């Protein structure tokens, strides 16, 4: 407060790298007004949108603000792509999921880190007739669905040789063809 007229009227801004500051008139709070790139908050102690870290180490070790790290599976036009403190990715795209958008989301399989978006994660498309409990999830990497008895194929859509009636939803039944009259 320079109106008092003493030599201690003006104090240096409590902000990093010489950032300017301002006093909020109502609350008399001091707020840094020009925090370094990627930082924000009253004392530049938080990371800006699109960045994560803990620049003052308020919640543990000091971690400077870095850009969201989401395996190239976020859209730069989105806001709030990662948690500002933990870096957890919040807006994974291309059917990916996980802390760093590094896995396929439920119901999808493949390699989330494949550089070609269309080849990252494909839908499991497990057959509702041939898979256990009509599941829609499959192995995240191989894409194998869990099949009923005597059902085969990645998506559990076929009967094993010598078996039929997948539409029963109970697994496939033995053909029981007469060995004398059948070709095989």
């Amino acid at each position, binding site marked *: 407060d320079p109106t008092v007229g003493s030599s201690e009227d003006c104090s240096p801004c409590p902000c990093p790298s010489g950032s*300017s500051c*301002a006093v*909020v*008139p*109502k609350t008399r*709070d001091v*707020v840094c*007004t*020009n*925090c370094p*790139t990627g930082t*924000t*908050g*009253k004392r530049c102690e*938080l990371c*800006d*949108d*699109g960045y994560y870290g803990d620049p003052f180490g308020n919640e543990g070790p000091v971690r400077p603000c870095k850009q969201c790290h989401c395996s190239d599976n976020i*859209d730069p*036009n*989105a*806001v*709030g792509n990662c948690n*500002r403190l933990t870096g957890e990715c*919040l*807006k994974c795209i291309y059917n990916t999921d996980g802390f760093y958008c590094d896995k396929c989301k439920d119901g999808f399989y493949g390699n989330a880190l494949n550089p070609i978006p269309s080849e990252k994660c494909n839908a499991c498309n497990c057959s509702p007739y041939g898979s256990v409990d009509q599941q829609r999830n499959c192995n995240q990497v191989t894409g194998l669905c869990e099949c009923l008895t005597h059902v085969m194929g990645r998506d559990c859509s076929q009967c094993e040789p010598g078996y039929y009636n997948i539409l029963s939803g109970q697994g496939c039944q033995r053909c029981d063809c007469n060995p004398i009259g059948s070709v095989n």
Partner: protein
Amino acid sequence: TRPDVIPLPPGTHLLYAQSGKIDHIPVEGSSLKKNKAKTLLHVPDKVVIGIAYDCVDKMVYWTDIAGHTISRASIQGGEPTTIIEIDLKSPEGIAVDHLGRNIFWTDSGLDRIEVAKMDGDQRRVLFTDDLVNPRAIVVDPVNGNLYWTDWNRDAPKIETSYMDGTNRRILVKDDLGLPNGLTYDPYSALLCWADAGTQRLECMNPNRTGRRRVIDSIRYPFGITSYGRNLYYTDWRRESIIAVDRNIGRESDEHQPSKRSRLYGITTAYSRCPPGQNHCAVN
């Protein structure tokens, strides 16, 4: 209505969001009073995205994606009040219907559009279907229309409906990229948008066919608002507010705040409400 027939209210400001704060800058005629730009509100732990202004009670409303809230505060000063704090994931655009006393917002996390009274009461979901990346939303309360953008990279669009959610339809879907910003100017009846994909500002009269390119080869627009003959947009790359003369399609002014970071929503705080009533407000 022609903009030169109804005089624009003097003493009008632009309000714009820059992460943890909301600033205001006076506009006089078509120029920005840059030396009078001031911070209206510090909310250092928030990330403010959308802002809207209620010309009746002189309040600013904003969405915050860090705390997942919608809040408001008087522009004459005063503590912010949170009006919605549950069932929000990534609230982005917000619009104020100053006649019917409602707020509308988009949520790009829950992929829906909602409405509530200005204190957050009587909340209702308007749309949940066919929304991928809903962002900007504006109202034309005099005619009862709602407009919003969806920057879905596979099928970007600008949509409209009545304010009660009926009569939803797509207004624009061709030659769109990332329609981040949208503004409706009650004086000229023009709906204008800012597209970070095509890097253009465009306008149309929603009741007519045809659209007009205002300016192209801009950098990375996010928010947009109209006042008089100008459009004002925020730009993520230039980290500034840029004035564009809508009639001649040329940049006419720029304001770069001293804090260097992305700018988000921008809105016009008219010193007097634009003229016009609607039936609900009269009744």
